[in-house]
């Protein structure tokens, strides 16, 4: 159980930005000249950290920088990070599609990735022929496929069409067949990307079930890459957080998720946040979260306010706009969603300030993250993921002097218990 099955040491990966054209030949020659003389690559050291929002002044960038970690046999390792943090690059290196610029990876087992669904499928060949070809591409021998053929066909649910060319299949059937092959591959290390959202609901359930079997039942080592904190939490035993190409956290799943969320929530003023989507007709320029009145911390059971200041230069009225709020807990689980669109609208002001008010706050104590979404005439105007966070302090919700444990429930309901 405690054997190290995968050892990643000081992996870095450098990419050249922009288009490859002028300058490549001269850089190549220069690089070649350096290698001939036994010197190191002159361009490798001028790479910069991989922060896509900051303009760099070098043409080279390090997508991964000094990544090191170890995975033990039977472990399910979650890899979390923002878009562009370097997760996919790491996966590509692990699945040997591309080589690292420096560093080594040592492994004791075959690595296969569920990214490769349907690779090499040929439309003119039958389902059965494609199972063999696809299986072989993924590293199975013909004998291995022979023994699993029935199982694969059964899992795919395409039995009736198995001797029909794949070009006659519906796209859903192709995906089912492809996933069935990949799922029956038996590598010692399986790499799963969250982009598993294929097929219909029934098949997705089957796919996720199979993944759980693989990781839990069969004791296989799994690397799981995802944005879905709930899935990471339920599947993984350990997690690493990648930021700008570097590992910033390595440890228990719960701690990793908390670390990731804290890190990805910007602490700068909301006005300064760059990562927002939408036309920007209306924008949030300031936010204040308070309890009973300004300056008082939110407390369970007390009145609660979130007040936004908006920049609204076009004078959009409140009946043209829609304001949604989502509150996630410190584990990234969705707790509540509020929107003015589900409430009767009272006024038609040209809005500069918006206030969300909960008369008796029914959130348990803890840290919460808020995602905001404003649309004007059904068009996204300002959408900020994890725009800000707030802390709720402990309070006496039921007036009994007792408290509901925060690990039991994030939200508090109004209820009675009657013995009859």
């Amino acid at each position, binding site marked *: 159980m405690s054997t190290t099955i995968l050892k990643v040491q000081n992996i870095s990966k450098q990419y050249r930005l922009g288009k490859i054209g002028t300058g490549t030949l001269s850089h*190549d020659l220069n690089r070649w000249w350096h290698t001939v003389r036994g010197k190191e690559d002159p361009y490798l050291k001028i790479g910069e950290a991989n922060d896509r929002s900051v303009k760099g002044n070098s043409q080279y960038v390090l997508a991964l920088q000094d990544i090191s970690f170890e995975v033990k046999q039977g472990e399910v390792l979650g890899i979390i990070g923002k878009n562009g943090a370097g997760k996919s690059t790491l996966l590509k290196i692990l*699945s040997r599609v591309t080589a690292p610029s420096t560093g080594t990876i040592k*492994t004791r087992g075959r690595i296969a990735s569920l990214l490769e669904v349907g690779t090499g499928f040929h439309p003119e060949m039958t389902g059965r*022929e494609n199972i063999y*070809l696809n299986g072989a591409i993924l590293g199975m*021998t013909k004998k291995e496929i022979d023994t699993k053929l029935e199982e694969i066909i059964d899992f795919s649910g395409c039995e009736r069409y198995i001797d029909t060319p794949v070009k006659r299949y519906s796209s859903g059937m192709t995906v089912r067949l492809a996933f069935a092959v990949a799922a029956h591959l038996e590598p010692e290390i399986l790499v799963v990307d969250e982009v598993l959202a294929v097929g219909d609901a029934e098949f997705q359930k089957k796919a996720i079930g199979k993944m759980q079997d693989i990781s839990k039942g069969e004791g296989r080592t799994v690397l799981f890459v995802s944005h879905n904190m709930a899935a990471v939490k339920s599947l993984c035993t350990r997690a690493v957080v990648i930021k700008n190409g570097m590992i910033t956290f390595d440890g228990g799943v719960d701690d990793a998720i908390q670390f990731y969320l804290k890190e990805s929530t910007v602490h700068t003023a909301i006005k300064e946040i760059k990562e927002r989507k939408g036309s920007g007709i209306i924008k949030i320029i300031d936010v204040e979260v308070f309890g009973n009145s300004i300056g008082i911390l939110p407390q369970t059971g007390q009145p609660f306010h979130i007040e936004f200041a908006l920049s609204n230069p076009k004078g959009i009225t409140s009946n043209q706009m829609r304001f949604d709020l989502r509150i996630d807990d410190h584990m990234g689980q969705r707790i509540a969603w509020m929107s003015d669109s589900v409430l009767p609208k009272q006024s038609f002001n040209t809005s500069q300030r918006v206030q969300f008010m909960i008369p008796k706050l029914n959130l348990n104590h803890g840290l919460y993250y808020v995602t905001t979404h404003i649309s004007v005439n059904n068009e996204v105007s300002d959408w900020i993921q994890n725009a800000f966070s707030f802390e709720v302090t402990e309070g006496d919700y039921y007036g009994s002097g007792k408290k509901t444990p925060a690990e039991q429930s994030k939200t508090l309901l109004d209820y009675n218990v009657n013995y009859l």
Partner: protein
Amino acid sequence: MNKLKSEEWLFEISPKKSAFEINFKELWHYRDLLMLFVKRDIVTFYKQTVLGPIWFIIQPLLTSVIQFIIFSKIADIPSDGVPYFLFVLAGNILWFYFSDCLKAVSETFTANQNIFGKVYFPRIIMPLKVVVSNLVKFCIQFVFFIVVLIYYIYQGYDINPSLLVLITPVLLFMTAILAMGIGMLISSLTVKYRDLNFVVTFGISLFMYVTPIVYPTTLVLEKINPKYHILVYLNPLTGILDFFKYAFLGSGSINLAYLLYSLGIGLIVLLAGVLVFNRTEKSFIDVI
């Protein structure tokens, strides 16, 4: 658990690997993949066609007919005393094996970037697969050639196949390593510099004219100063083709030294091809 002894790693991923290394054990593991790729190539070639595998024969047949009309009937090029059609057909089937392999191998990275970008398997499978599936194609054309040969012998032409036909596999092997070596060199370079794609297309058709297919080598030797005869044999295909035609048709002249030269060039080119290919396959996906 026995196989998990400490410090016994299955494989290691690192920036560079030794230049000529081919992991034969791994290649053996993927042998089924090679055969399945070959099967895919052959089967999908004639799926949904009426004539099926006959298409493999039509290509050399029509080419030979046209060449027969132009080079024999119009230009009056001699053919060492054997029927010109048979002479040119023999040259064509071997030439097509060479040029088809070369063209397909030189497109290895550009044509397979999709699959290479998603999954790992020994990349050298792809050039190998080209050589093997073209071999199947060659065999079909070869059978056709033999049928035509027997027809001509039956008609009473003076054609003398010799025991040398037994070295045909060796000649094919030499053609294959030449095509594979040159193709792998080009494929690795086209990854970054697409210019070579254009060179290959018309380079192959130009190369055909310096290869004795539509004319016999003896004709060239007759026309040029004996001092320059060595130039004729610089083309490694000349020796192979001369042997092939001599073995089956009994025409022309052969010299073992030239054949050994072709073999030497073939091995050098193959080695260079593997070297460059190995360097390229590790990170071509970043630049393609």
